[in-house]
């Protein structure tokens, strides 16, 4: 949609602002072109990620939380984000850029609801996290297997049913038994889940939507890093 815009002649701050605008509007092709242009100007992959894509997705998250944007628009923005990340991810690994964090997320055993959980996954990717999305109906073994394989910073669990949410406690108890609970941030969410339940089962926080999940994850990651 940038027919009249020549990104080659654009000052770098305008280019980044345009990248954020196009991300917000879900224009994947434009975002890809702008990411490539920013890299060709000598920006590091990490700078493009944080000052372009993540900065853009932040506003998407906030506007979704505030009812300004709706689910299809968030999905379009997430797709544009993903298109940009396909270029950046290998470069980030090569350049040894600091990692924002790794999240293993899944809907718990007996529950097949995943729309909200997938939104969380996408918004977390948008915020620069590496996300391992386990899908639906995950038992303890599935979560433990993913923890062994990916060494995540955060475990995210989702349930939409009052009958399935108690399974989150089973997972947390297993983490405790294995002695790894304190190495991990445990976030829970889903329609019936609330703060009291999260506290009761020993999770770190309940996140009511995708935007809150990102905010909470970033806050707890900062604390985790300080503790070293």
């Amino acid at each position, binding site marked *: 949609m940038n027919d009249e815009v020549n990104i080659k002649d654009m000052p770098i701050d305008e280019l980044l602002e345009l990248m954020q605008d196009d991300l*917000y509007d879900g224009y994947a092709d434009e975002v890809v072109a702008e990411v490539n242009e920013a890299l060709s100007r000598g920006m590091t992959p990490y700078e493009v990620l944080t000052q372009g894509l993540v900065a853009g997705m932040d*506003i998407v998250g906030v506007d979704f939380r505030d009812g300004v944007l709706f689910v299809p628009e968030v999905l*379009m923005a997430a797709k544009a984000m993903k298109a940009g990340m396909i270029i950046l991810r290998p470069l980030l690994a090569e350049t040894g850029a600091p990692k924002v964090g790794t999240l293993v997320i899944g809907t718990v055993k007996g529950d097949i609801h995943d729309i909200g959980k997938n939104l969380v996954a996408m918004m977390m990717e948008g915020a620069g996290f590496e996300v391992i999305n386990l899908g639906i109906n995950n038992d303890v073994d599935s979560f433990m297997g993913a923890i062994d394989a990916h060494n995540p910073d955060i475990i995210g669990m989702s349930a939409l049913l009052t009958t399935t949410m108690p399974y989150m406690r089973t997972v947390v108890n297993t983490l405790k038994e294995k002695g790894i609970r304190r190495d991990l941030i445990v976030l829970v969410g889903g329609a019936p889940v609330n703060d009291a339940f999260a506290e009761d089962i020993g999770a770190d926080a309940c996140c009511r939507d995708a935007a809150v999940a990102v905010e909470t994850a970033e806050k707890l990651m900062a604390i985790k890093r300080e503790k070293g």
Partner: protein
Amino acid sequence: METIISSKTQTVIMGPNQPFTIIGERINPTGRKLLAAEMAAGDFSRVERDAIAQVQAGARILDVNAGIPLADEPAIMAQAVKTVMAVTDVPLSIDSSVIAALESGLQAYEGKALVNSVTGEDERLAAVLPLIKKYGAAVVAISNDETGISEDPDVRFAVAKKIVERAMDYGIPKEDVIIDPLVMPIGAVRYGGRQVFSILRRVQEELQVNTVCGASNISFGLPNRPVLNAAFLTMAIVSGLTSAITNPTAPELRQAMLAADVMMGNDENCLAWIDYDRRRKAAAQGDTAPTDRESRRRRRRERAR
């Protein structure tokens, strides 16, 4: 089965996988005394206003009718067509039962017009179809014939089929025939709804052409008409209806059509639905153009600070 109607600058594609097409019905002096008097006296200012308002409300095609008793209908039709072309870019539907007025409208029009309409009567077919062929237009085909309007959907389907076949005999591609199944007032005809839904399904499956109907005939003589019209339209769209001649400025109908597009998967990413809602909320707050890209960006940047 896509029908293309065009103006000099805009193309409307009708079809089952396209957003529903609203044909704005307001430019019609029938039953509008003031408009009739003005048009007969050469005053087309109300025509201009009606054209603009309907396009803003979501009409993709505008119907133009100049049927004023004892007036020079061909001349008024030509003037009305030119007037509407001057103030909007949307394609037009030339609407008359007078052959000379249809031809006059087609002559004045630039683009591929829709002609409203022909029936299954042999005499009408012989008069209208050569015009359609000559001007490369599309035509609304009403499913009645010399025997009147049958309450038997099979008979009305047979008439529709006959018109499509006759058009093809004249070298008119069948996708340029749009079937009007004829909607009866359900307050008087108990199964008027089912009849229409049945014809719509058969036209889509067997004839594979597009369809059109009036969206408010169904509720004639009943209270709370907008709700009935909206329910009818939604059910008709599921049955295969691809366009309607109606007043798009009625919000219930507009919303029913947008909702139907969402349900049928013809509004990708629900963007038209979301856009309509944004405009509605902004209009309530007195903001006029809230959804263009520039104002969205300004607002986004303010939030980012």
